[in-house]
């Protein structure tokens, strides 16, 4: 069985480990920050570039490239906004960092701020983490008192305040420009890009870096061991570790940190998570948060892929897929936020889609036409199907509506709400048809999901 490599989650659930500064320091905390502030900021950015770190919030965008895009010529202050809005269904990792090891996050924040000459950092934490917000505020106060954050960090003359800013229950605040609008006190309508790329016109129209909580923790470790060393962890172009959050119908759901690409989906579900529940078989897996396209157990994925410098054939079942960004994208889904949702043969896929569609219809901000109207339409169709009035053409209609949304919206929420419908209908079309023919298409003891 592959071994976890707990770099970020080293101290999570460790008996006796407390979220206070003393505990963090006893375990070597802030030594990296002390070293980092003696280096040139450009060097630190270089380390992140060399590390190959990709964002852990869902998009997987190369972090070093993001730092490189920041407009440093405008003379405007540069801001860091920490995306602690963790709301992608199936994802539960940032929660533990915030509640149990907040100083790791703060150290990652301060190193990132120093490297990018950030004027102030805001931690946008979802409103449903009220205790987490308090824990962070206490940690920030401790850090400030020890000159690790705030004015004149460690006597260097560099100052950077960190503030906690609570959200209030909107998934769209996890979208970077929606987050920025929310921080500005407006309705969180994502901005059109171009021209509002956060690196150029972000918070208060100033250059802004938006990074996920876990990503910033990785920056700390990169600063500690060097970008080159970090890049050897994981697999090429998919470096480092990431925290997989497995939920749903497995024996041992939970969070597991592995080197990216060094574990397959089958190993994760069967060996690490103990396989399906007694008497059940796996049916479907969503590998990267509910926005990711669903995988059907029994599918095969074939083609050619680049390994090293050569093109090599691959012929995979669902269990063979290496859990990294590129492989999951290659077989038609995505690594996303690392949230793996597992469904067994007790589940009606139409009901599961109904549950997902209700989520997106509820969370759509309503700014642009396709997502606003399309997400609610898809929800109404699946709700009607689940309540006994399905028609033969509903599967095709759902797919057609989803096709009219993806690629046509202001932000990626369009893809996020369209991909589940597209993939469920494509891969489980038989169940959608069965609902029209016979209402009792769901398995007898299927959980109510709608």
């Amino acid at each position, binding site marked *: 069985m592959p071994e976890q490599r707990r770099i970020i989650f080293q101290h999570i659930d460790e008996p006796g480990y407390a979220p206070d500064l003393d505990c963090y320091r006893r375990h070597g905390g802030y030594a990296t920050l002390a070293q980092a502030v003696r280096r040139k900021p450009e060097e630190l950015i270089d380390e992140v570039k060399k590390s190959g770190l990709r964002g852990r919030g869902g998009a997987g965008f190369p972090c070093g490239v993001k730092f490189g895009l920041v407009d440093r010529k405008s003379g405007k202050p540069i801001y860091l906004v920490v995306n602690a809005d963790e709301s992608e269904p199936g994802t539960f990792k940032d929660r533990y960092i915030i509640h149990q090891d907040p100083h790791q996050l703060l150290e990652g924040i301060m190193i990132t701020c120093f490297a990018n000459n950030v004027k102030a950092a805001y931690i946008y934490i979802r409103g449903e983490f009220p205790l987490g917000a308090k824990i962070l505020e206490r940690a920030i106060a401790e850090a400030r008192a020890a000159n690790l954050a705030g004015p004149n960090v460690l006597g260097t003359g560099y100052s950077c305040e960190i503030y906690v800013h609570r959200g209030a229950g*909107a998934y769209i605040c996890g979208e970077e420009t929606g987050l920025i609008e929310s921080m500005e006190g407006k*309705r969180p*309508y994502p901005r*059109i890009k*171009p*021209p509002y790329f956060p690196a150029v016109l972000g918070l208060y129209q100033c250059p802004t870096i938006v990074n996920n909580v876990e990503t910033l923790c990785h920056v700390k470790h990169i600063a500690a061991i060097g970008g080159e060393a970090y890049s050897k962890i994981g697999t090429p172009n998919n470096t480092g570790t990431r925290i997989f959050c497995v939920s749903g119908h497995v024996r041992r759901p939970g969070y597991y940190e592995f080197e990216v690409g060094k574990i397959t989906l089958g190993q994760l579900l069967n060996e690490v998570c103990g396989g399906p529940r007694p008497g059940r078989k796996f049916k479907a897996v969503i590998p990267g948060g509910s926005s990711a396209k669903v995988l059907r157990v029994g599918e095969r994925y074939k083609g050619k892929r680049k390994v090293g410098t050569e093109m090599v054939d691959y012929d995979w079942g669902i269990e063979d897929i290496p859990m990294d960004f590129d492989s999951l994208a290659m077989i038609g889904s995505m690594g996303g936020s690392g949230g793996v949702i597992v469904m067994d043969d007790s589940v009606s896929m139409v009901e599961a889609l109904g549950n997902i569609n209700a989520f997106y*219809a*509820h*969370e*759509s*901000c*309503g*700014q*642009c*036409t*396709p997502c*606003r*109207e*399309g*997400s*609610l*339409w898809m929800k*109404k*169709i699946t709700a*009607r199907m689940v309540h006994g009035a399905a028609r033969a053409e509903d599967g095709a*209609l759902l797919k*057609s509506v989803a096709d*009219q*949304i993806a*690629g*046509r*919206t*202001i932000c990626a929420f369009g893809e996020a709400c369209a991909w589940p419908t597209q993939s469920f209908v494509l891969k489980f079309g038989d169940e959608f048809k069965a609902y029209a023919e016979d209402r009792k298409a769901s398995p007898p003891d299927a959980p109510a999901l709608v």
Partner: protein
Amino acid sequence: MIAPPKPDLIPVNIDGREIAVPKGTNMIEAARLAGVDVPHYCYHSKLTVVGNCRMCLVEMGLPAVDPATKAPIMDVVSGKQKINWMPKPTIACATNAVPGLHIRTTTPQVKDCREGVMEFLLINHPLDCPICDQAGECKLQEQATGYGRGYSRFIEDKNVKPKRTQLGPRVTLDDERCILCSRCIRFCKEVAKDDVLGFTDRGSYSTLTCYPGRKLENNYSLNTVDICPVGALTSTDFRFKMRVWFLKQTPSIDTESSVGANTTVWSREGVIYRITPRQNDAVNDTWMADSGRLLYRAVRADNRLTAVRAAGTDGTLEPAVAAAAALLRLGSAAVVGSGRSTVEEQYLARRLAAAVGAGAHLVARVGAGDKLLISADRNPNVRGALLTGLIAALPEPQLTGLAAEIDAGKVKTVVSLGEDLVAAGITAAQLAKVKVIYLGTHANATSAAAEIVVPTLTVFEKQGTFVNQQFRIQKFAAAVPGPAGAADDLSVLAKLIAAVDGPAVQGEIHGVWTALAAAIPQLGPIAYRNLPSGGLLLDGAAWAHLAFPEGETLHHQPAARPA
């Protein structure tokens, strides 16, 4: 020989057609210049771009260059530079011209985008066309016909929202029809500077709302009705009154102040139903004040003058003119012109005054400017009086000069061209000392006391020009005929001039202009019919020394006061 494009123009390509556009032009405007319609809802040329309706999605491509050398990559087949077309469509409103930008609007993908957006907009839209005022000028109708699929696949229940909200005294809101384009919110915030509208709730349940307890009642609220692409915001005054396709549109000018906002008068069979702004990017953009829209009510007001009155005559025009001429030939006359008269009328008034040796006066109307489209000068055409030489200095609000002359016995006859002398400070006693010849549209204290009354036409019933605060001469046309007893102002004035043996002058617009052009060098080369619809900027230097009352408004900065 085709001249090369000016250096600050950027070449772009719309559906294979090359055009050069100014820097900063977005692709909806560029396409318009190329004769291509890019459908849209939320985009408005005078408001910030939000890109939320997604109707203007088009395919975009940029010329391919080698990333290292920047050398153009050529297409071997066509011999032209290869174009890298973006796989995802882009919104035209937010895409600004860069050299070599290519846009395609007729591909299957663009067609599918438009059909998709149309379908989405209609799924929660109520089937209100038969009862909706917007029908006939509704962007949803037009674009559904032009770019929609033609049928809907939606069989679920539509969202229900508040349907008949009085947003304020003049605007009615139907939230079910609203397509959430946010034009009204942006207008209120950015132009009217009255941040009172917003969206509540979220997703498909988002609802346009005025803050509870507040009203949309600023003096520009009806502009939101103009720019609303659907029948969500409608004019309460116009509600259910007339189908727009029956209405004739006539270009006119708002006479509320010297801004001279361009308007359109909508009428049918001699009845005016509404007034809307007419676009003039140099004067009023696409806006006008609510108060200016109500002015048409004066056409059928109860105190409208409809009968010629002159003692000892049969109530027709000719004897009245003869009687007036007899009075004027006695001498000691004064002419009170008006800042609300047209340039042509003011010119004839000057000719009349000269013919009888009368002094000319004007009445000023000054109020507070609102820094937008109502200026401090509530006369639309004081500058016309200056231009025609009817007056040489700015008028006063009260006719103190004339009052003194009356008391001194120097003036025995007053011709008033629509001005109420009593309101302008002439006392009842002074009025009793003179004989008044009143040419005007509505009854007032002066017309009641006048010896001779000739009803004339409102701005909606005649044609002519006004000179606005920018010294821009703008023309307007007649939308409806005047009431039976009224006479055209130019015709009456010309008859009067003839009757007092003044030099003959034509009593209709083109003839007057021939004379005007001869008298005023600036107007020399222009014929009335050739005046551009956006007006013509004249040179006001000759009057730069005068202390005009206007402050700053949209598109007008007052010149620095002379020392």
